[in-house]
């Protein structure tokens, strides 16, 4: 039996849903509650912004930032050796540009509109940022190096497919070169690591800690998944113990207890001790992240590779770990971001990283009470670094996404 419904009365055509008024009615004033909320938020936001602008342009004394720029970026690194830092920055910029170009090799156009806008903003900041003219030129040069090497990388990447492999080797070589440039020796004037500070120390400590904790974390993750009970228990105990403790107590352990554990005649630098602490801490978190990746690999993968006759180390190294690490990239980048933020805790054990050097600057009688300016500045630095990393990881995830 079929029922026939009368055709619905033709409804009038919808009123035009375009234009700012319609948009506001739809998104801001679609009910009385939302209307009140919008007015309240606009008032709150407006007064905050007005107060901030008034403060930033009349009360704030921004000269605390340009006056101390070298301190923020390299600490007490000797001024005559700044060229070494610039060379390093140029080198890293070239490498980063190449990597970007090669990752984007499938893109139809390298310099799309958002990229061009980003480069223009970077160049603009380089020009208007209040530094000596030479530095403005150098920053502009770094932006140019990034763009040029990205173009070269894009060209090479689309012509020579296997070039990506050389890039990872280049990154691996970059680390010893960076250490040589910064620490000196072999013909360069040696610089004591205690003179490093600011962003240089922050980046150095976090990069070295993540590099050192990576193998340890992989081993611990594999250990926790192992079928051998002793290894499993030991790894689990370590991971759970470290994850249950605050980072500050681990750093305290590193700065106070590590000297007790090594023979009395060896003295470890405080920076090294801090890196040991951060490495021990990060490894436990990395292990859990990688364990999540390992668990997401179906058992069939192991079984298939065993059926092909691969031994356990080969199965792990060729089949399981590459897939597991790829799955855990977002979480690993998240860890890297929190590690970068956690380096601020080094100021509590007496190191002058970015936040520590700011405290030192604020203790200078000339700049006393300029908290808001200084903290906003280094907050911006941290925000840009962390946001860029999470954005980059999202892009990397997309480009590595091989599932269909």
């Amino acid at each position, binding site marked *: 039996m079929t029922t026939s419904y009368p055709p619905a009365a033709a409804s009038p055509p919808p009123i035009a849903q375009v234009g700012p008024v319609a948009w506001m009615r739809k998104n801001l004033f679609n009910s009385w509650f939302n209307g009140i909320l919008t007015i309240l938020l606009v008032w709150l936001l407006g007064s905050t912004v007005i107060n901030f602008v008034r403060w930033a342009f009349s009360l704030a004394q921004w000269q605390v930032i340009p006056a101390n720029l070298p301190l923020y970026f390299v600490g007490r690194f000797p001024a005559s050796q700044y060229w070494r830092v610039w060379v390093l920055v140029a080198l890293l910029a070239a490498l980063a540009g190449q990597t970007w170009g090669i990752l984007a090799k499938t893109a139809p156009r390298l310099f799309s509109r958002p990229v061009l806008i980003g480069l223009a903003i970077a160049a603009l900041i380089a020009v208007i940022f209040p530094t000596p003219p030479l530095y403005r030129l150098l920053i502009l040069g770094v932006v140019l190096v990034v763009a040029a090497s990205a173009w070269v990388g894009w060209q090479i990447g689309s012509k020579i497919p296997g070039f990506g492999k050389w890039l990872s080797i280049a990154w691996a070589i970059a680390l010893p070169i960076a250490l040589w440039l910064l620490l000196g020796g072999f013909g360069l004037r040696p610089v004591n690591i205690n003179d490093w500070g600011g962003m240089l120390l922050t980046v150095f400590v976090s990069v070295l800690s993540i590099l050192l904790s990576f193998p340890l974390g992989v081993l611990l993750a594999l250990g926790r998944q192992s079928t051998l009970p002793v290894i499993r228990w030991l790894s689990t105990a370590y991971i759970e113990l470290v994850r*249950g403790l*605050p980072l500050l107590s681990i750093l305290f352990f590193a700065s106070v207890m590590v000297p007790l554990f090594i023979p009395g005649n060896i003295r470890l630098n405080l920076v090294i001790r801090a890196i040991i602490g951060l490495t021990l801490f990060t490894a436990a978190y990395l292990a859990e992240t990688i364990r999540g990746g390992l668990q997401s690999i179906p058992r069939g993968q192991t079984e298939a590779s065993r059926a092909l006759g691969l031994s356990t180390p080969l199965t792990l190294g060729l089949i399981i770990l590459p897939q597991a690490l790829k799955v855990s990239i977002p979480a690993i980048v998240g860890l890297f971001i929190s590690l970068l933020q956690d380096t601020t805790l080094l100021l509590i054990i007496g190191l002058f990283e970015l936040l520590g050097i700011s405290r030192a600057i604020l203790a200078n009688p000339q700049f006393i009470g300029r908290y808001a300016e200084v903290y906003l500045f280094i907050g911006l630095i941290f925000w840009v670094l962390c946001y860029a990393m999470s954005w980059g990881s999202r892009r990397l995830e997309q480009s590595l996404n091989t599932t269909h």
Partner: protein
Amino acid sequence: MTQSTDGSEKIPFWRDDRVWRIIIQLIVLGVVLLIGSILLGNMFRNLAQLGRQFDFGFLRNQAGFNIGETIVPYQTNDRYWWALVVGFLNTLRLILVGFVLATVIGVLAGIASFSDNWLLRKLNVFYVEIVRNVPLLLQLFFWIFVVFYSLAPQRNLSDPPTPLLGRGFINKAGMFVPWPANTTGDWLALLGVVLGAIAAFFIWRWRIKLMETAGASGKPQQWMLIGLALIGLLVLLFGMKWETPTLGENNSITGGLRISLEYAAVLAGLSFYTGAFIAEIVRAGIQSVSKGQWEAARALGLHTGLAMQLVVLPQALRVIIPSLNSQYQNLAKNSTLALAIGYPDFFSTFQTTQNQTGRAVEMILILMAVYLIVNLVITTLMNLLNRSVQLKER
């Protein structure tokens, strides 16, 4: 092809997996023990050189340092162990209030990300992206030096304090807010409110049950709940003897509750920081409930609020609570940063004690024990909560 006659052909032991499994474990255990014994040997040798023995007796010595703010009585000549207890109580006060505030902020911000108000959604994204990408320690410095110290610009305690919303004061010593005087009537009123809250909880469950099983509207129970809430509010406002802080001679402030600026700053920093993470967890939890559940609930005639309360939230909680556990643990661990801005929490009393006595080994054992127990308690409670919201399967 020859077949072994007795059927017990031995595999050579170096091809036997079982033997290797045992050997590998023995090797790993041996290496760990070797490293451990070298490290411990070094430690005892170094300690002996410094002339120290492993001994907890120092905890009974006089502490001799001051603690800025305490909940329980503490004097400078009290013992070390009591100083540590006082610090621990300060930490508890920080993390318990922090849990509540962070949860409220996080849940509100998480729900705000589903608002159909464009401005609210954008502000929410702004809050989450800023807070998650700036180090917590920097945020704490910002709260204390930029926010709270600028609210209290007085140089000396004898300068007149800044009024706070007409009912309290703020100066370098802290914020002074109205607080119930410690009388029997107050405690009775408080007891009444607590009993009312328990009654409200049962009425609420009764209402949900009626709505789910009998399809009742739940209106009478709703009126009962509203009535209880009104009575509770009235009792709190007028049944208790609220003491407002008053300005005395030399600008000294008496009465009310003093909240030190350090405590307020750490609390604000921790709550907003953890709140941003909780907001993301709540958002992910609500998003994990499939759209069909919303549509089905709406098709049954439930309006948005009820659909959220009866259908979506119970399912979202299953996703939310396990992640909340680690956020609460992070809050507890991050509370150690209070040390950096001068709130005397457990870690700060711990560090002072360690610096004065030089007892690194004993103190680090105490420290580990305390934080591991705190984490264990949080995990246990959250697992209990988790079990109560999990899907009951046979």
